[in-house]
């Protein structure tokens, strides 16, 4: 059964101040101690078009967006028309009385008598917070903080308008069932997936971020740029994505852990650079925020259509690791892991997110951000008396590292006068290009050996539910929350259901995954794409053919309702 939660949709045209309204309201809700899941729906334009912001809140933990609406805050007529049909029984619409929509169930607010046009938003925060019964002082404090930062000159009027809205709402009866009060949140963050990636990278010691703007990855760059100077980090907008990845590789070669955020089209342009990182054994982390493709596709919507491409991008053969966080918290943690693994194995790693998770705010406990292990500890087998070899052949395939011009702590015994030679051609241990074909074979084997080490560091799949289920849902990346909640409901309906989620999609541990699949009677893969790429991958890696899929590729986030409907319980005996 669905948890006791509320869905609020705030809708209007781009440019109407939707962001301000949503941000303040959401933050106040988080500060009040609620859990939230936010989905944003916007178009590839700056003004006009229909945009919406949907906030699900709950006193208990929640993991996914839900369908159906309890409150619609309509900044324009279109919002009412589009979203009224989604209202649940007792759902209400909040709108300006001037919008001229006659319906007794609507709360028509005389905004113009409460405040002037410009502060309409703030008033709406007052009204909605009143409906929800949020503590007024929390709301006012949140709004004050917000305006102090973004519009210091008009803080006062804004707050006045907010209070006016709040007062107007006071005492007005709504058939509306308020949520129970949550436990206090204790400094929870209101943070979205991309911001969590940015913080994760900064906490991992990232020193260079090179990017070319592309929705939905840009907010990773924006978050880092905002704090770059005080963090002592260089954030550079490149002339194109090819430059971005090569710049990051150059930076990493000289000692800066580096991040490259991008989306599908930009990632395509980075395929050659990815292969370069593989060959030169230069760590680099790519954050790939997916959107529906192919090509330009739907720039502001969500999809998981780039899995197979990310796994195989770049010509030739080289090891890589690919992570796919299933929550905002995992965005933070796996970004750190991506840096750690990139450095530990001197390989490129990829974090796959998507527009849904990128823009999805949630209430998160503050992140733990201790220092990561010192990068690439010296190989104890290599005596410091031996000359430095960039591509020293070792049992693990990983060679000790040195940065040009620097004596690195790990190889401190090596004089800083050692030279570091890296080459995109096949090369000797020293790093010089070679056409010696026996060296070639040894170098291929060396690089491939890293896969053994990588396999020992795989993030365990999350398994949840009955251990020998009748129905096993498999998923990866951002759909985890929806699958989790769907699975809960299926079990409540009496089905022996479970799910497994992979937040690392490469490499995969065949045995453990096959073990999980083997125990299930029926398997359904849940993916936001049209060809069930993950199911194919699992077949390749485990031999199991997953016959049924729940595939969503209309650009909207996966929801528990979508999954349950597609699974079609009607047609089976539960």
């Amino acid at each position, binding site marked *: 059964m669905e948890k006791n939660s509320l869905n609020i949709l705030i809708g209007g045209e781009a440019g109407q101040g939707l962001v301000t309204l949503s941000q303040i309201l959401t933050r106040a809700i988080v500060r009040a101690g609620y859990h939230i899941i936010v989905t944003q729906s916007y178009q590839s334009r700056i003004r006009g078009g229909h945009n919406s912001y949907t906030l699900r809140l709950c006193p208990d933990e929640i993991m996914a967006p839900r369908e159906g609406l309890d409150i619609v805050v309509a900044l324009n007529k279109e919002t009412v028309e589009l979203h009224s049909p989604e209202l649940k029984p007792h759902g209400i619409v909040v709108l300006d009385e001037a919008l001229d929509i006659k319906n007794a169930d609507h709360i028509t607010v005389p905004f113009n008598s409460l405040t002037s046009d410009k502060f309409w938003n703030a008033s709406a925060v007052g009204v909605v917070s009143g409906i929800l019964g949020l503590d007024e002082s929390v709301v006012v404090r949140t709004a004050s903080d917000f305006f102090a930062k973004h519009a210091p000159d008009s803080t006062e009027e804004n707050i006045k308008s907010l209070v006016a809205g709040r007062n107007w709402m006071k005492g007005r009866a709504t058939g509306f069932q308020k949520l129970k009060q949550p436990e206090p949140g204790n400094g929870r963050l209101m943070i979205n997936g991309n911001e969590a990636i940015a*913080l994760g990278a900064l906490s991992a010691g990232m020193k260079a971020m090179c990017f070319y703007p592309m929705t939905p990855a840009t907010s990773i760059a924006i978050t880092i740029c905002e704090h770059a100077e005080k963090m*002592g*980090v260089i954030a550079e907008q490149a002339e194109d994505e090819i430059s971005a*990845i090569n*710049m990051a590789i150059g930076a990493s070669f000289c*000692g800066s852990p580096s991040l490259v955020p991008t989306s599908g089209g930009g990632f395509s342009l980075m395929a050659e650079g990815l292969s370069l990182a593989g060959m030169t054994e230069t760590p680099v982390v790519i954050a790939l925020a997916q959107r529906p493709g192919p090509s330009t596709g739907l720039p502001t919507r969500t999809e998981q259509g780039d899995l197979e491409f990310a796994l195989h991008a770049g010509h030739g053969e080289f090891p890589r690791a690919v992570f796919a966080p299933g929550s905002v918290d995992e965005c933070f943690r796996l970004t750190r892991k991506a840096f750690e693994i990139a450095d530990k194995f001197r390989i490129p790693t990829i974090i796959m997110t998507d527009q849904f998770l990128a823009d999805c705010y949630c209430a998160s406990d503050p992140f733990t951000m201790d220092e990561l292990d010192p990068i690439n500890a010296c190989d104890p087998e290599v005596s410091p008396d031996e000359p430095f070899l960039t591509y020293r052949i070792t049992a693990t395939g990983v060679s000790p590292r040195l940065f040009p011009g620097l004596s690195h702590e790990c190889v401190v015994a090596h004089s800083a*006068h050692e030279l570091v030679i890296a080459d995109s051609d096949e090369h000797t241990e020293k790093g010089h290009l070679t056409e010696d074909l026996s060296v070639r074979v040894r170098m291929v084997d060396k690089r491939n050996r890293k896969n053994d080490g990588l396999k020992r560091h795989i993030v365990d799949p999350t398994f949840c539910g009955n251990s020998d289920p009748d129905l096993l849902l498999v998923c990866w990346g951002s759909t985890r929350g929806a699958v989790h909640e769907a699975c809960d409901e299926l079990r409540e309906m009496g089905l022996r259901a479970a799910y497994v989620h992979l937040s690392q999609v490469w490499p995969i541990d065949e045995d453990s995954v096959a073990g999980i699949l083997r125990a299930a009677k029926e398997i359904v893969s849940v993916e936001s794409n049209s060809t069930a790429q993950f199911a194919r991958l699992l077949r390749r890696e485990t031999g199991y053919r997953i016959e049924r899929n729940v595939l969503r590729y209309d650009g909207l986030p996966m929801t528990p309702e979508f999954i349950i409907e597609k699974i079609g319980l009607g047609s089976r005996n539960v």
Partner: protein
Amino acid sequence: MYELGDYGDYITAWCPGCGNHNILKAVKDALFKLQLPPHRALFVSGIGQAAKAPHYINANVFNGLHGRSLPVATGARISNPELTVIVESGDGCHYGEGGNHFLAAIRRNVDITIIVHDNQVYGLTKGQASPTSSEGFITKTQPQGTHNARFNPVQVAVAMKAGFVARGFSGRVEHLSGLIQQGIKHRGLALIDVLQPCVSFNKVNTYGWYNQRCYILSEGYDPTDRNQAMLVSEEWGDRIPLGVIYKNDRPAFEDHFPVMKLGPAAMRPARLDTLKEIMESFS
């Protein structure tokens, strides 16, 4: 005190008689004259005959992708402003595949020195026209002669107000070494386009052809006069000017980043305390 020999003495894979040999000589001479410690220099290159040059020099090397040396060099500077970063690659690398980075690097004015081995042909892939090939240049892939206008890198760089723009000739080693030394000392981007005969694939722009035409700009030439530099950079025909054609003292890319004054990124710990404050601003 470094000896000339400390900068390396390798057997190359270049054709006998190739102009690259002399460029290599000039580079090593410049490093020697500047007494640049080999481990403080990083050579970045792309792919091509020219791009092999760093393998023949004792220094740090990143030999990356065709056309992509400039972004790598920029990234290197971001990480370690104490390195002297020198880019060496061909005309195809810089003005063909890498044209967009050429424009961007000039605009950024990164403190690197770019030495372009300009043989007006794609050497390593066996002689296709390059952006600097003269119109009508006949090759196996341009059997009717290339119909693209010749790219004049020097003039475009002057038009874009690059920090330091010079032209050298591999037939004049000492002069070239001087240009390289000046380029390295210049704070900001230094472009040195070097005329380099390719004895295997360019039967037009030969030693004789260049010798007949090249002249060294007079002592009195003022490279800070941009209008004059535009005119001089236009010269290409009976007379081809060599020397520092243009320079200015725009701030370098590095000057915009306070953190770069603090030394190599690898030596700076992550500022976790600051980050914790940032995180708190999300609550």
